[in-house]
């Protein structure tokens, strides 16, 4: 199976941005082997990383502080965890909350007792605290109250968690924000960007979350043992695997995708290049075919366990299950043994739902790590777009026409196309979405109105001389500087722009959230509205004790058993 990586593998044509950068398809994304949790855990696994717990000052009720340390890529990172009582009325997953069951910082190195005391005075306050350049990431979490207590009670009575409840909830705590990159005074990304283990975007945040997951496992073991020292049992290996870490995600993720256009491009270009390489495989060997058939079956069982209350998403899941039965019927070993199996499968998938199409994209990457994993090194931002002021107006017009046809086609005389405005609330800087014609504040809207701005730019470009430089044009029209720079970036970053009008009445922010969360590696998307979703992170992933085992990377779309 090993292939030399000394030359670029053959590639089929990449899928066009007009196809893949649409909100509805982005909102059907699934985690894949180049998702950040997967790339991080492969690195931890490769290095045989050893997690230690140098501090455990937790009382019988589960309150106190703890530190976990792990060496990765030659550097040590430490999760500093604080667990404190929380009044029921204060428990909220929203950004506007001011207290949580637990709060965390990822520290660069091993904290001293003085560091711990400083962090204890700030971390539980989250945004109301201040931090030093030694802190890399900040997070907080709330207990999944009933299930947390259920697990503790079962362990204390010598039993594992009820498998049905475990399947229904799947985590002991939910994170409600994970911050990085210099927020609140902690380290800028430049501090760690050159470290091989942290070069990939969001590895810091994903390491933070993986360590938090381990802390939640240890916490229930500890409380159960305190309740019944003689009779309590610890979580089994199977239970630990099945317990991920929950997350509630709201609108905060959405503007990120518009603001970080080269990063969005690079993520998407990596996934599409990986798909193109796999589609170019002329013949699959028997082992790979057997693996894919097994993964199709695993996906089917995973889908059977994916239940949500949201009717829109549940309808999509039901359709997906039906499509997947057709996938199973079609993609048997004989069909896949013929030439160009993945090209044929992807082409064939056009008849199925977007969910099925994108699930197949994720699936076919899975057995081809040797072909695609090197692309993981490209999952970082790279240089930010720079304006080329010498470009001629005629050339910018051509660029806009080539890359923004979707924006130029929007009819903004239709009120439905400007239904929403995005803004930031005074309430703890929470990002929100307003209805333009019903709510105040549109004059302060955030610049996510790319399509509208592109049309304004094109109108003024049309009135300018084609041979004029962009420098002269922008001196007269500084209001177009923002979108002119974006348009120029499209020449080298064709996947940089979400190709839909984010102001339109039919815009579903949940699509942006799911896309980004899938790239993180999350699964079991559980939308609670068009504005926020619950997810499960690291469910099925190896824990601290399992890093280095042979199957530590084989946790794509986990299936939970009946008897953990």
């Amino acid at each position, binding site marked *: 199976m090993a292939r030399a990586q000394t030359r670029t593998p053959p590639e089929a044509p990449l899928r066009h941005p007009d196809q893949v950068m649409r909100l509805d398809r982005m909102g059907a994304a699934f985690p894949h082997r180049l998702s950040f949790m997967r790339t991080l855990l492969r690195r931890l696994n490769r290095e045989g990383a050893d997690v230690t717990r140098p501090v455990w000052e937790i009382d019988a009720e589960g309150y106190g502080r703890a530190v976990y340390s792990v060496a990765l890529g030659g550097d040590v990172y430490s999760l500093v965890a604080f667990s404190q009582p929380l009044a*029921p*009325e204060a*428990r*909220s*997953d*929203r*950004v*506007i909350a001011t207290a949580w069951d637990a709060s965390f910082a990822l520290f660069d190195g091993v904290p001293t007792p003085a560091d711990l005391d400083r962090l204890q005075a700030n971390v539980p306050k989250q945004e109301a605290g201040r931090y030093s*350049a030694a802190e890399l990431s900040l997070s907080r979490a709330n207990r*999944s*109250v*009933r299930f947390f207590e259920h697990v503790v009670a079962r362990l204390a009575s010598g039993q594992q968690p009820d498998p049905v409840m475990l399947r229904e*909830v799947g985590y002991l705590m939910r994170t*409600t924000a994970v911050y990085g990159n*210099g*927020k*609140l*005074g902690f*380290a*800028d*990304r430049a501090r760690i960007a050159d470290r091989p283990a942290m070069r990939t975007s969001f590895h810091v945040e994903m390491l933070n979350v993986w360590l938090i997951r381990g802390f939640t496992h240890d916490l229930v073991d500890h409380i159960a043992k305190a309740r019944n020292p003689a009779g309590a049992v610890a979580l089994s290996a199977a239970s630990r695997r099945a317990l991920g870490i929950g997350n*509630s*995600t*709201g*609108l*905060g993720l959405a503007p990120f995708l518009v603001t970080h256009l080269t990063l969005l491009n690079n993520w998407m270009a990596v996934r599409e290049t990986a798909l193109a390489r796999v589609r170019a495989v002329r013949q699959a060997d028997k082992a790979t075919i057997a693996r894919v058939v097994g993964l199709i079956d695993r996906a089917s069982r995973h889908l059977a366990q994916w239940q949500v209350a949201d009717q829109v998403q549940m309808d999509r899941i039901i359709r997906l299950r039906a499509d997947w039965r057709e996938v199973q019927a079609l993609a048997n070993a004989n069909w896949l043994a013929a030439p160009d199996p993945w090209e044929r499968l992807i082409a064939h998938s056009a008849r199925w739902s977007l969910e099925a199409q994108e699930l197949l994209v994720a699936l076919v990457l899975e057995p081809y790590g040797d072909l695609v994993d090197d692309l993981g090194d490209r999952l970082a931002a790279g240089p*930010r777009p*720079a304006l080329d*002021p*010498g470009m001629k107006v005629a050339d910018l017009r051509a660029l806009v026409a080539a890359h923004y046809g979707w924006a130029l086609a929007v009819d903004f005389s239709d009120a439905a196309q400007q239904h929403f405005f995005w803004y*930031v*609330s*005074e*309430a703890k*800087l929470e*990002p*929100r*979405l*307003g209805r333009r014609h*019903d*709510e*105040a*504040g549109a004059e*302060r809207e955030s*610049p996510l109105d790319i399509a509208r701005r592109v049309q304004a730019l094109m109108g003024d470009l049309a009135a300018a001389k084609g041979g004029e*430089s*962009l*420098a*002269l044009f*922008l*001196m007269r029209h*500084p209001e*177009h*500087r923002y979108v*002119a*720079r974006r348009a120029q970036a499209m020449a080298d970053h064709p996947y940089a722009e979400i190709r839909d009008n984010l102001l339109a009445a039919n815009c579903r922010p949940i699509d942006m*959230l799911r896309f980004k969360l899938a790239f993180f590696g999350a699964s079991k998307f559980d939308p*609670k509205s068009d*504005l*926020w979703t619950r997810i499960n992170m690291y469910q099925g992933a190896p824990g601290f004790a399992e890093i280095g085992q042979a199957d530590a990377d084989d946790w794509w779309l986990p299936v939970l058993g009946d008897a953990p």
Partner: protein
Amino acid sequence: MRLSLNEVEVTLKKAAMGAGYATGLAEDTGRACFWLAERGLDAARAGAAALQSPAGGGGGELGDGCLRFAAARVVRDGPSALDLLLSGDASSVELEAADAPLLLVGLAGVAAAVHGVAWRLVHAAGALVIGGDGVDGAMPKPGAMIRLTRLAEATPTGIAPQTGGCEVGDADWAAITALAARLLVPESDASRQAGAGAGAIDND
């Protein structure tokens, strides 16, 4: 107080937007202040001076290869000054009574880094060279008459960027955050209930 460089950039961008500048100009202001802070220069002073400057000036006039700005407002005029030197539309730029010369240094530093060039900035009290990695020479004072030209070759100064954040003056930062706050929309019951994600209480 100590800030991360990212806080400097993001907050200055928001402050420039809050002061009424176009998004693209605000982005450039944020990047310029990041560049200044990374080199130990007073980014908050530069930003506060520029964004608190009263409205004025009348845009640039190009003649005989020289672009002239009267009563120059650096947030608005600085990017155009550098653009026209880079595009070759102008061979020199004069900014009269520039309100925030230090911000112009930051804008020039970013442009030098991105385009691989260097700049010569002459003012009444001296001159300085601005490269992508730093500056060398005497800084101009607010209100100075500035003449800016592009040097034939990039001139590395050998100054290493600092990491670990930067110190800013409390008064400057308060002024900047007040401008940034102009972008925030006051809370209402409707926005609290319908405009954001995540539920209030969850006990699953």
